[in-house]
């Protein structure tokens, strides 16, 4: 058995004060200066070391507050009032909700799994990944000594293609060619987000994080020059046909990506012949034609198909389909054709939380690309100011590569732990075994149909009175 894969995390503080969930709204006047002052009794001591960040106007009492509301309830004259912070409510958008962003910040800072006490307060189900629930039936008898205990849970996945069968020639030599496989220790590949105040240092940091984690970092061709020396094996150059310039692929490159087009299979074959250890990935937009196209690619012998959804996980074709359904349909199509095991299916777009990784895998992906979370790990507020030429409120472009690398390492470390927890709770010990394992999940739509689908329908031969 190989040595256990572990991500060692270390708390890395924010560079800026983070936007807090709640804020004091009013200090009423009329303090009695009484002896039972709630400010002195705060268990977190937030009133003792009060400070105001003048550039962001963030008060330490808002920032350090753990929202226990003891001071609001305890003040004899009821002088302190709190409400949701308007800046917090304005974070992100409908998909990258403030709570998701705040949890990603926490994970990048501490490297720990975010735990909310007092149960789960959210809705029962929702759109996208929220409409599927993973199996937790084995949680009653977890591994004897926790997810990092003696029982081994492997999160490694294989990238590449395998042959359907092996055949030998007359001299008992291998005729069918060997499988071209690259295994990475976790089903998460980093990828440059489509916007952000990204500098050379940011790219450098991300690549260092990918190398340290043993995974890969997908970068557009023009950004490759910003990567540190010797990192070529950990970089996936995203080659675009329009862009000319220095060849992005070297002898050390292990995976490269090209966008889909009608003649892509030929190009992929050519590249793989030229570089004997190279795996080529084809980026296929997720839309209603993805199934057919994926099938053609698989039959042409492409190693990796990367299903790309939009930033919020919806279909590129504008038909409103979500990533999870897109992956399922392509996966099932390949299963029906009997060629699913020969290729690798990766997906991207809208992977925002740790639970989305096992959910995408259950739907049929081998692994996922993570893009915006690695930007949010650097304190990004998803305000999109950078897309309008405004300054970044947290100056991401000025962050040092080592800080960037540690923050991303913390985030991925927390996600890896959550993946282990989820897999442990399902009783699954290998991420490769989880792929397409829909028996380990319940889909809301299916449950809804099975329970209520027949209601209101009249059986044949029956007459209503």
């Amino acid at each position, binding site marked *: 058995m190989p040595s256990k894969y572990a991500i060692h995390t270390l708390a890395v503080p924010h560079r800026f004060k983070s936007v807090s969930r709640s804020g004091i709204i009013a200090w*009423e006047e009329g303090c009695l200066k009484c002896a039972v002052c709630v400010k002195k009794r705060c268990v977190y001591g937030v009133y003792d070391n009060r400070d*105001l960040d003048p550039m962001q*106007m963030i008060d330490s009492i808002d920032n350090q507050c753990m929202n226990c509301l003891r001071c609001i309830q305890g003040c004899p004259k009821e002088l302190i009032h709190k*409400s949701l912070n*308007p800046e917090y409510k*304005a974070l992100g958008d409908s998909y990258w909700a403030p709570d998701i962003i705040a949890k990603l910040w926490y994970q990048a800072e501490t490297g720990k799994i975010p735990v909310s006490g007092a149960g789960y307060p959210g809705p029962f189900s929702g759109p996208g990944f929220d409409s599927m629930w993973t199996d937790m039936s084995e949680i009653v008898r977890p591994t004897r000594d926790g997810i990092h205990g003696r029982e081994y849970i492997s999160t490694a996945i294989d990238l590449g293609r395998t042959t359907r069968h092996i055949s030998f020639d007359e001299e008992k030599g291998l005729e069918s060619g060997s499988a071209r496989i690259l295994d990475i220790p976790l089903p998460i590949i980093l990828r440059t987000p489509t916007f952000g105040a990204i500098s050379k240092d940011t790219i450098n940091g991300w690549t260092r994080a990918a190398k340290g984690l043993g995974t890969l970092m997908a970068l557009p061709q023009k950004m490759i020059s910003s990567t540190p020396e010797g990192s070529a094996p950990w970089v996936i150059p995203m080659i675009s046909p329009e862009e000319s310039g220095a060849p992005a692929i070297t002898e050390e490159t292990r995976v490269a990506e090209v966008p889909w087009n009608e003649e892509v299979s030929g190009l992929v074959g050519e590249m793989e012949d030229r570089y004997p250890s190279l795996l080529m990935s084809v980026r296929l937009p997720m839309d209603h034609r993805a199934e057919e196209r994926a099938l053609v690619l698989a039959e042409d012998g492409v190693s990796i198909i990367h299903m790309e959804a939009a930033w919020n996980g919806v279909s590129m074709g504008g038909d409103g389909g979500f990533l999870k359904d897109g992956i399922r349909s392509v996966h099932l199509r390949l299963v029906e054709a009997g060629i699913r095991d020969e290729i690798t299916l990766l997906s991207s777009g809208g992977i925002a939380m740790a639970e989305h990784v096992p959910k995408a895998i259950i739907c049929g992906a081998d692994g996922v690309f993570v893009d915006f979370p690695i930007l949010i790990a650097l304190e990004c507020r998803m305000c999109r*100011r950078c897309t*309008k030429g*405004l300054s970044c409120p947290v100056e991401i472009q000025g962050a040092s590569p080592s800080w960037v690398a540690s923050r991303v390492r913390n985030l991925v470390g927390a996600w890896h732990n959550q993946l282990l927890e989820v897999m442990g709770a399902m009783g699954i010990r290998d991420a490769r075994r989880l792929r397409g394992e829909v028996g380990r999940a319940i889909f809301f739509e299916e449950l809804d149909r099975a329970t209520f689908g027949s209601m209101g329908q009249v059986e044949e031969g029956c007459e209503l009175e």
Partner: protein
Amino acid sequence: MYREQQITLGLFYCQNVPESREENRQALEEEFGKSLRLFPIPCSGRLEPVHLLKALERFADAAFIITCPVGACRYFEGNHRAKKRVERTRKILSDIGMEPERVGIAIGSKEAPKTLAQQAREIFREISLLGPSPVFGQE
């Protein structure tokens, strides 16, 4: 149009001011660039003299607060308190020999409500005569 004057305004505003959402804020920042720094607060009653003074100390030539109309504060007395605190800050400024006009309050009107952008433009007009703050020295 105001950018040439190089006056920086630190502008606090209650989240209940009309058209003061994130997109309006970004549009204003695009228009005024670095000469305007916006700080949304849950209620103008949150404002304390230290906020205004810190703004003047660190980056602003003037610091203002926009509140809801009198009697329309969601938390009853927020704007009333903000007014008192601005007056107090003004007194501190005149005591130390600075123009008290560098700090001010814009109270909304129930009859003719104004948006954040309109208020910001009016405040810029008001402070345009002040000139750069002596805090940052002669540059």
